[in-house]
Structures are given as structure tokens and as C-alpha cells.
């Protein structure tokens, strides 16, 4: 009896000590989390409902007025349209290029590492380097037009043509980033058991059939993950037009929603209004992510 009691209290204090250690180990991170992440998240929601003019020093609760302003703000809708267009184009492009690159990489041995290492390399570069290089490459007398001239074509002024500017920024972004989804797809492809391919081949399935009926359904989770995260990342495009098209030119053809938020917050200091736009964009992204999950996740069972 006595020994049992002593044992119980021993485990109790031990348990307490372990819990205390747990909290102590967590404490530094928790502190940073509360200050730099949780705090800003809460204030993001509050900011959307106040009139907050940094220059005049006003700060007052105005309910939904910011959102009414958004409704009447033509530039917001132009910018949102541009960002959506850019995000769809870049996501589709990235997924297609990365998928074929991953399929090709999986089927080769010789030179595999070299191809893989080089194709992922642009991902580690900063947008400022990418922006600088590609605004030169896409200039009227840049590398791309020099290449076209070899085929007797006069080329284009990619970044000054309202119809070409967003596709050009999108191609730049695909060059910069396709290595990342490529690695994710490659990981997913390696996880597909080889026996399934063999079975399909024995059943007489052709190459295209295997891709559509075996490979794609089996890597669906990776595909879904990439489509959703790519879309969310690219709808927030900022650095490309900031650096390459002077902040959204020509006119407003490459003016994106984050540029609009940036300009309202840090050029005009309309903090409340910019905050409301950021929240709206957050909600839009959330809805799109849900829709994508619904549409693509529906047939996950096979």
C-alpha cells in the first residue's frame, strides 16, 4: 500500500515535471507566434472595419464602409481580374510543364540528376534577380526577339503590349518556378507501385491510357495540392509587375490586386481600406481553394 502510494506520487511529479518542461520548451516560440502571427491575424480582421488614415491620424470604426468603397473602386476589379487571369495562366502552365518534366525525369537514369538539379535551380533565385533578367530578356532588343529574328520574325515589345504583358509575366514566372511542382510530382510518381503499370501494360493499355487511367488518378492528391497552393501563391503576384512593368503598366494592363493593396497602404496610407481589400482577397482565395478541393477532390476514391 505504502509503496504504491509513493509510486503514484512519484509518477505524478514526474508527469508534472515533463509537462512543465514541455511548456518551457514551447514558451519562446509561443511568444514569437503570439506577437508576430496571432496578433497581426486578429488585427487584420479589425483593420478591415476601420477608417485608418496614417497621414491624418484618423482611426475610427466605420463598419462595412470600406467594403462599399471596394464595390465602387474600378481599379480594384481591374486588378482582381488581372490577378485571376495571371494566376490561372501560371498555375495551368506550371502544372503542365512540371508534370511532363516529372514524367520524363522518372523514366530516365542517365543524366537524371543533372536535369533535375538545373531545372529546380531558378526556384532558389529571388524575384528581384528574375525581374531584372527578364525585363532585359523581353525588351524590344532583348534575347527573345534576337532569337525570333533568326526565324525572320520582327518580334514583339512584350512588356509594353497590353495584350502580351500578363502572358509574358506568366511565362517568366513559370521559368522561375516550375521546378517546385516538378519535384512534388516526381515524389508522387515514385510512390506509385511499379506493379500497377505492369498490370496495365499486360492488359494492353497504351501510353496515353496509362497516363489518364493509372498515373493521374494515383497522383491526384499531389496534383490537388499543387493546383491549390500554386493558385494561392500566384494570385498574390507582386514582385513581377512591381519590377518589370513599373508597377502595373502599360496603363493598368498588369496592375495586380497586391499592387493595388500595396499602393493604397504604403503610398497613400489608407490602412483601413487596404486592409479591407486584403481581407477580401483572403476570402476570395479561400473560396477558390474550397471550390478547387470540391471539383478535384471529388473522385479521390478509386
Amino acid at each position: 500500500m505504502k509503496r504504491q502510494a509513493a509510486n503514484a506520487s512519484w509518477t505524478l511529479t514526474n508527469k508534472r515535471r515533463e509537462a512543465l518542461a514541455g511548456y518551457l520548451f514551447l514558451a519562446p516560440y509561443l511568444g514569437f507566434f503570439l506577437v508576430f502571427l496571432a496578433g497581426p491575424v486578429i488585427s487584420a480582421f479589425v483593420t478591415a472595419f476601420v477608417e485608418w488614415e496614417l497621414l491624418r491620424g484618423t482611426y475610427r470604426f466605420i463598419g462595412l464602409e470600406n467594403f462599399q468603397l471596394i464595390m465602387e473602386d474600378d481599379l480594384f476589379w481591374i486588378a482582381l481580374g488581372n490577378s485571376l487571369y495571371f494566376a490561372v495562366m501560371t498555375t495551368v502552365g506550371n502544372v503542365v510543364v512540371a508534370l511532363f518534366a516529372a514524367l520524363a525525369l522518372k523514366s530516365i537514369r542517365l543524366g537524371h540528376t543533372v536535369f533535375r538539379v538545373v531545372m529546380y535551380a531558378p526556384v532558389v533565385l529571388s524575384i528581384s534577380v528574375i525581374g531584372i533578367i527578364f525585363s532585359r530578356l523581353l525588351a524590344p532588343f532583348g534575347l527573345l526577339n534576337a532569337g525570333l529574328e533568326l526565324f525572320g520574325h520582327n518580334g514583339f515589345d512584350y512588356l509594353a503590349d497590353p495584350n502580351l504583358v500578363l502572358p509574358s509575366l506568366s511565362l517568366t514566372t513559370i521559368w522561375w518556378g516550375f521546378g517546385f511542382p516538378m519535384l512534388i510530382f516526381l515524389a508522387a510518381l515514385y510512390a506509385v507501385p511499379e506493379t500497377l503499370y505492369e498490370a496495365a501494360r499486360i492488359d494492353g493499355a497504351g501510353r496515353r491510357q496509362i497516363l489518364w487511367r493509372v498515373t493521374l488518378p494515383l497522383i491526384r492528391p499531389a496534383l490537388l495540392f499543387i493546383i491549390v497552393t500554386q493558385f494561392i501563391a500566384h494570385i498574390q503576384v507582386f514582385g513581377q509587375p512591381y519590377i518589370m512593368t513599373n508597377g502595373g503598366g502599360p496603363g493598368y494592363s498588369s496592375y495586380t490586386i497586391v499592387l493595388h493593396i500595396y499602393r493604397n497602404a504604403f503610398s497613400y496610407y489608407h490602412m483601413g481600406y487596404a486592409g479591407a481589400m486584403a481581407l477580401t482577397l483572403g476570402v476570395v482565395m479561400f473560396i477558390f481553394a474550397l471550390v478547387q478541393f470540391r471539383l478535384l477532390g471529388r473522385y479521390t476514391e478509386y
Partner: protein
Amino acid sequence: MQSDSRNILNKRLSKLATYAFLTILLLIVLFPTVWVVGQSFMPEEQILKWPVQIIPSEPTLDNYIEIFTTKLSRQELSLFRWLFNSVYVTTLSTIGVLLVTSMAGYAFARLRFPGKQLLFFGLGASFLVPGVMLLIPSFMLMRALGWIDTHHALIWPPLAGFFGVFFMRQFFLAIPSELAEAAVIDGASAFGIYWRVFLPLSRPAVATLGIFTFLFIWNDFTWPLVVLNSDEMRTLPVGLVVFLGEYWSYQGIVMAGAVVSSAPVLIVYIIFQRQITRAVMATGFGGR
């Protein structure tokens, strides 16, 4: 027989097509890079020639000398200052992230305490918050702290990122518990076990997290653009864009700037490409 040889031929052709496709992709990635490096070593007369030249006929270091010796803006600054700022901010912040998140990851992987699951998922929910929503409130927080135009604004906020906690937790979970038990019998404290058993065993994970954090902070553009406004505080990516704005018409200098600012990350990438590739494939992080 006939169908067999046709099969072999088909296989060879498809292998050839695969290599052709990969080679085209490889060239698309490599060609602009070669062109940038080439132009950075060219005198301005050759750069202006049409059609575009790829290989410098008389290689020169003038562009590099120019960007490192010119005084930027009105201050007595050179590109070295931005290089130093980038190294300083990135190093301190990375060390902080490694310490703080590995401790939290250890708690989640190895210690039992009430509310653990709830806390883990609560913190993990921060993954769902898009960056653009945090930009303005974070800026206001920096203002309130008096950190606008200081390096504190770049060093401390990354320590709140959850990725490191998650990443280290996964690694710590995989370490066999016999090792920890042996240390307990030897009378080691909780911190002793973390510091002397788990951290040394997870050197590869710490290195990988360190590289990811380094790349992320080194390359960041939007945040430093927002919180820093004087030339002497800027980091390399933002400084470069501002500086090159003034030199926009000198392409050789622009290209030399691009080479200088990407060389450190490319060197890190080439040295650690195996760890980076493995971590990207295992965790799904590290993209744009």
C-alpha cells in the same frame, strides 16, 4: 518476332523523345543564364550590338568593378553594404529560427503535456493565413515597436513561422526512444536530452531547415521593401532593384548586379542540392 523488334524500336524512339524534351527544357533554363553571365563580362559597346551577343569577345571585369566601387545614391555606400546587410540579417534570423522552432518541435514530438494536440493544430492553422493579409498589420506592428527602417523588422518575425516547428517535430518523432531513455537513466535533464541527444542526432534536419530559412529570408522582396526605407539599411534584392533603376541603361552593370546577388544562393543550392531536393519532395515546401 516482328512485333518484338518493333517494340524495341518504339522503346528506343520514346527514350529519344524523352531526352529531346528534357534537353529542350534544360536549354530554356540554361540559355538566359549563360546570356546574363556573358553580358556581365562584356564592354558596353558589345552589349549594344545587334543581333545579341552571347560570348564576350574581349572579357572585362569593368562592370563588376563599377558596381562594387560606385557610391550609391548620395550616401557613401557601395554594394558591399547591401551584401553585408543581407548576410547579417539572414544569419541572425536563421540561427533564431533554428533554436526556437527546434525547441518547440521537440516539445511536440517528445514531451507529454495537457493541451498538446489542441495547441499543435491551433498553431498549424496559421498555415491557412495568406501572406497578403498579414502585410499591413505586420507593418503597423513594426511601427508600434519602433522597428521601421531597422533590421529588427527582418530578423524577428520569421521566428514565428510554423514550418520549422512542424519540420523538426517530424524528424524528432522518428528518433528511437531507446536513445532518450538511456540519457534519462544517466540522469540528464529535459534540456540536456534535447541539447545533447536529439539536436546532434538531427543535424541533417537542422541543416535542411537552416538552408530553407536562409534562402527564404535572403530572397524576400516584399517585406524588406515595405519596412526599410533608407538606402543604408536595405538588403541586396531590394537594393539591387532601387540601384539598378538609376543605372537601367547600362546593361552590363545590371547583369553584373544580378550575378553578384544570385551567386550566394546558387552556391548554397549546388552544395546542398541533395538535401534540398529530398526535403522538398518529403514536405511539399520550398516553392513559389
